[in-house]
């Protein structure tokens, strides 16, 4: 038996309830008290449209002024107004024009308010010109990709890249992002402000990198999106709305990048990986809310359409003849799905994929999952030897899946005492109650 099914942080973060509609983000909406399904749907639709337009307008304005914060300021009230207005009155035919009208009014107000401050005044003038240009030109160029490349620039602190993308492209507020990334809103707010200051002051250009540079830079964009997705999955019970939503936001971004860079196989690979994980979301808990490991999941409960879409993406990506981390991770998901559906063991193929992944991105997390696959192929003893090679990595001491994997392998070799100890540590490290229960049951079963 292998614990978990994957290789990444999403593994230990199996999530429960299916939540299709995003909960309200704005205060105003909560007050409106959407009781009927229709109004919830209207709100979700309005939010989706507003968010898409918001990101486009922020990107467009920031690309002209290089001042992300000013662009956000100009649009934030417009966005908030849209979230209260649209669910009631319906989405406008031209959402961008609507947002723009409100944003321009706001910018003119700001301009008046700060007339004496010449620097601010100059920036606002450029901003107003930008808004004017959008108004005159209905088809505004989509520069969200460039904005994402700015947010994921190597000169930006690595840990703030994903939050920054979520805020600038999707308009999520700092409070919501902070709770999703388990940080205090004040600390998150400060880091986001600092990052935006850096973008403005350091002269980071708003452009999609040239061909030769694109590959390396695209990795950081994809990593940021994946970090957002993984962070969302660390709330396995789906009880924290902010973090549960994050998986959907990440999926939206992954779709956007795949759509804007359709010839980049890794962009397709990431979307496929996310779709695969998302397809199994509902099957990861049973009706009683207990954790269900992959090997015991009912494939009928998986979302077949999402899996099909993921498979098609991987097919397209493989035709481009440039393998990468996300394509390999996607292919692993695909192999797991195939094995569970057909009942045909495919561990040799899985180990091969992990070998390739380890060679490419040799993280200890990959090593653990590779060891678990090796156990299926060559036995638990061989797997423990392989795992010993990464045991020195200090990060693993606090990594629950490492101890759970060790426990499983030790139990198989008959080292029950050591297995019990490893389970004890894994249980102590687990945040999620159903997974903890699952581990406790396995630990108790050792006595038999």
């Amino acid at each position, binding site marked *: 038996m292998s614990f978990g099914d994957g290789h990444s942080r999403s593994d230990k973060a199996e999530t429960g309830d299916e939540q299709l509609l995003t909960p309200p983000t704005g205060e105003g909406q909560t007050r409106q008290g959407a009781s009927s399904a229709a109004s919830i749907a209207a709100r979700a639709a309005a939010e989706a449209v507003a968010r898409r337009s918001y990101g486009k307008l922020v990107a467009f304005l920031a690309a002209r002024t290089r001042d992300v914060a000013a662009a956000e300021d100009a649009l934030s009230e417009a966005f908030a107004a849209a979230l209260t207005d649209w669910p009631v009155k319906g989405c406008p035919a031209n959402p961008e024009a609507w947002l723009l009208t409100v944003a321009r009014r706001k910018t003119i107000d700001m301009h008046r308010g700060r007339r004496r401050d010449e620097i601010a005044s100059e920036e606002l003038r450029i901003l107003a010109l930008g808004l004017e240009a959008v108004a005159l030109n209905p088809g505004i160029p989509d520069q969200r990709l460039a904005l994402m490349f700015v947010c994921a620039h190597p000169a930006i602190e690595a840990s703030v890249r994903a939050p920054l993308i979520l805020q600038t492209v999707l308009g999520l507020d700092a409070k919501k992002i902070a709770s999703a990334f388990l940080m205090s809103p004040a600390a998150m707010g400060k880091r986001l402000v600092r990052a935006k200051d850096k973008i403005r002051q350091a*002269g*980071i250009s708003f452009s999609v990198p040239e061909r030769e540079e694109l590959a390396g830079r695209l990795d950081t964009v994809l990593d940021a999106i994946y970090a957002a997705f993984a962070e969302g999955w660390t709330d396995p019970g789906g009880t924290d709305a902010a973090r549960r939503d994050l998986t959907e936001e990440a999926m939206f971004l992954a779709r956007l990048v795949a759509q804007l860079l359709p010839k980049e196989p890794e962009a397709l690979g990431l979307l496929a990986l996310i779709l695969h994980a998302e397809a199994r979301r509902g099957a990861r808990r049973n009706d009683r809310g207990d954790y269900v490991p992959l090997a015991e999941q009912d494939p009928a409960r998986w979302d077949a359409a999402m899996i099909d879409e993921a498979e098609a993406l991987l097919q397209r990506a493989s035709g481009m003849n440039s393998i990468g981390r996300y394509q390999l991770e996607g292919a692993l998901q695909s192999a797991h799905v195939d094995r569970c559906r057909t009942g045909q063991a495919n561990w040799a193929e899985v180990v091969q994929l992990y070998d390739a992944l380890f060679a490419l991105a040799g993280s200890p997390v990959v090593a653990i999952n590779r060891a678990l696959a090796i156990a299926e192929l060559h036995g638990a003893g061989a797997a423990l030897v392989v795992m010993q090679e990464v045991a020195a990595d200090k990060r693993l001491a606090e990594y629950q899946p490492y101890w759970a994997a060790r426990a499983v392998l030790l139990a198989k070799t008959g080292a029950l005492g050591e297995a019990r100890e490893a389970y004890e540590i894994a249980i102590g490290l687990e945040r999620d109650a159903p997974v903890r229960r699952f581990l406790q049951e396995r630990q108790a079963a050792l006595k038999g």
Partner: protein
Amino acid sequence: MQYLLMLYSEEGGWNQLTKDQQDQGMAAYRAYTEALQKAGVLKGSNRLQPTSAATTVRLANGKPHVLDGPYVESKEQIGGYYLIEMWPLDAAISWAARCPGAGHGTVEVRPVWNMAT
């Protein structure tokens, strides 16, 4: 936009090099400076004396308080700088990466405050 490339390195490092290595190092810096000049982006550059020659000054109770030595005691100190003009940051980073100082130390890229706006 102007950027100041600040070259940090271990102060004692230079004296530990052989004569050949020092000659090679000087040649590398000369070539780099020339490349910046040819590209038309060099605004200024200097090599600094070691921090043993540094004096620190600040006012205490209205009187200059003078101390021997650098502001921060550290193994790595600024040994020189290049002031370059270009856009955007990525271009400055590329030039910083070509600087010999990035090989034997660390180059900090600092945008210069634009007083014009």
